[in-house]
């Protein structure tokens, strides 16, 4: 009886020490990512074949055929468990889901949106997690090289004071959401050779009133739209600003609307966004 018990205990202790270390040393082969930005990073560093399911908002063409497991607010945990992942990438606020996965001994990688530097550091971290350190380093270094190259190229140019808008009510200038002085959008604007007019607001999203916009008098206004839109709609959106006719941006015709899903995804396509904004701010530098 005692011999049996001690054998069982020994087996249990052995199992306890061997299992997690084995799991840690193994490279994950069944990754689920519910964060589109991270999914893009995984594909960029060549870990795409290890991805088995993605978020319902994911638009990457490589992931088109993969199963969807919900997103930030509605992750389908049952589906996730049934897919038997060995790494799940969650957003930092999904604390309950993280707890469930941890209890089931499924490794979790949590991510939160941060600034521009956070994109490359996340790519490197993902490289370590997925056994693709070298490729991740290459991708991150390429982003850093492009950004630095652009900074050098635009170094001696005047930096237009820019209002970077990412949301407002349709047809009118109401409820404007613009980039404040910290975070990803602020960083890409600065990297593209602009000065953020709301740089002194210590928040990622700022909501300036029409009085504030008039008083700030931006030289350039850039609106970012994640969803596809028509030329007509863009023309209408640009025209809506004309009621603020004292704004230098309006007087000189420097009001732009940029569209594309990459605009709101702080992922590996970040240099494309910076490039597009830089071309608007400094057309003669290219």
């Amino acid at each position: 009886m005692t011999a049996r018990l001690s054998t069982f205990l020994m087996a249990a202790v052995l199992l306890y020490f061997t299992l997690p270390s084995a799991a840690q040393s193994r490279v994950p082969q069944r990754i689920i990512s519910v964060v589109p930005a991270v999914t893009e990073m995984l594909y960029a560093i060549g870990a795409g074949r290890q991805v088995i399911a993605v978020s319902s908002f994911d638009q990457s063409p490589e992931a088109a055929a993969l199963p969807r497991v919900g997103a930030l607010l509605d992750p389908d945990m049952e589906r996730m468990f049934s897919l038997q992942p060995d790494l799940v990438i969650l957003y930092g606020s999904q604390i309950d889901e993280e707890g469930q996965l941890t209890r089931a001994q499924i490794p979790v990688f949590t991510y939160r949106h941060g600034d521009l530097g956070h994109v490359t550091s996340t790519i490197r971290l993902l490289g370590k997690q997925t056994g693709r350190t070298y490729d991740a380093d290459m991708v991150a270094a390429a982003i850093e090289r492009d950004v630095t190259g652009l900074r050098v190229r635009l170094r001696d140019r005047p930096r237009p004071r820019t209002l970077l808008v990412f949301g407002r009510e349709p047809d009118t200038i109401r409820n404007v959401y613009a980039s404040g002085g910290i975070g990803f959008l602020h960083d890409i604007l600065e990297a593209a050779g602009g000065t953020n007019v709301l740089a002194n607001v210590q928040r990622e999203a700022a909501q300036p009133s029409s009085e504030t916009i008039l008083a700030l008098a931006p030289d350039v206004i850039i609106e970012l739209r994640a969803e596809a839109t028509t030329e007509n709609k863009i023309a209408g959106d640009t025209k809506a600003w004309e009621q603020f006719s004292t704004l230098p941006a309006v007087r000189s015709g420097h009001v732009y609307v940029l569209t594309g899903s990459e605009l709101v995804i702080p992922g590996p396509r970040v240099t494309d966004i910076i490039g597009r904004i830089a071309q608007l701010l400094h057309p003669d530098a290219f």
Partner: protein
Amino acid sequence: MILRAYTKLDRRDLRWRIGVVNIIFGATSLLICLLAPLVGPTPISLRAAFDSSIPFTENVDAQIFFIARLPRALAGALVGAGLAGAGVVLQALLRNPLATPFTLGVSAGASLGAILVIILGIPLSVAGIPAVPLASFVGSLSAVGIVYTLARFRQQGLSTGILLLAGVTLNSLFSAIIMFVQYLADYTQSFQAIRWVMGNLDVSSYSPIVSALPFLIVAFLIFTWLPKPLNLLTLGAESAATRGVDVLRTQRLAFFSASLATGAAVSLGGPIGFVGIIIPHVVRLLVGADHRIVLPASLFLGAAFLVICDIAARTLLSPLELPVGIITAMLGGPFFLWLLVRKR
């Protein structure tokens, strides 16, 4: 001081009392509306703002005064007056002190309309009126239509019981649809929709005001006729009828004028809470329950209160904007509780 003056006047001619209250409340709200555009986060030169020798397209002071501040003050006054007036009328019509302009489903209908446009991006703009206010007004009218039809369905008169229940049910139904639409929407659109519900008077042009004004004027004109029959109606439909009140006509006019005022106010500033329930009670605590005094005084006080709240909204967190719906409750709540305790 003012309160004591009123009690002394109590036995004198009522008409005189109405006049005094109207002048005091009217003058106060007019003064506040006139001073409001002078206050703001940016220092501006008034001389430059009114200098017609500088072209408007180059005059920043003038644009801040005439585009950013003046329409806001006007919108605040109209929305405040509309919501407070609708609150008084509905509290009398439903004989329920907890009734608000939003009780009968009008604001939920308005919100549903606005949120559908924000999230589905329906290009609904007609004759220069932006899509969101238009859709919210259409939404509020649909809610009014549904509630009214239900209340008339089985009865000769207008059943206030069914009116109330239908309104409350419609509120939950519309809220559920709103949540469903928001749940399916993407992140930035949901945020825009939530922001709309918090209320915003930064209209940044006169066109929304001009398009809401005719409806508000019609509602206010009906309000001038309502006080006397409403006084009798608060005693109950039967006793009002025995005193010669055409009950159905009064109920119908009260319901439509209040709904029209609410719908126009919400399309202009969003569903700003608290004004429509608290202002009527504050006024009643100050000047008594006679609707001939309460209704006009509520219109004036509602206007003044919302304009003051909006000054706070645009200056407290400057250069950022604070949603005005947050301030109305935060400023009005404690004040009302204080008034409640002091009076009892």
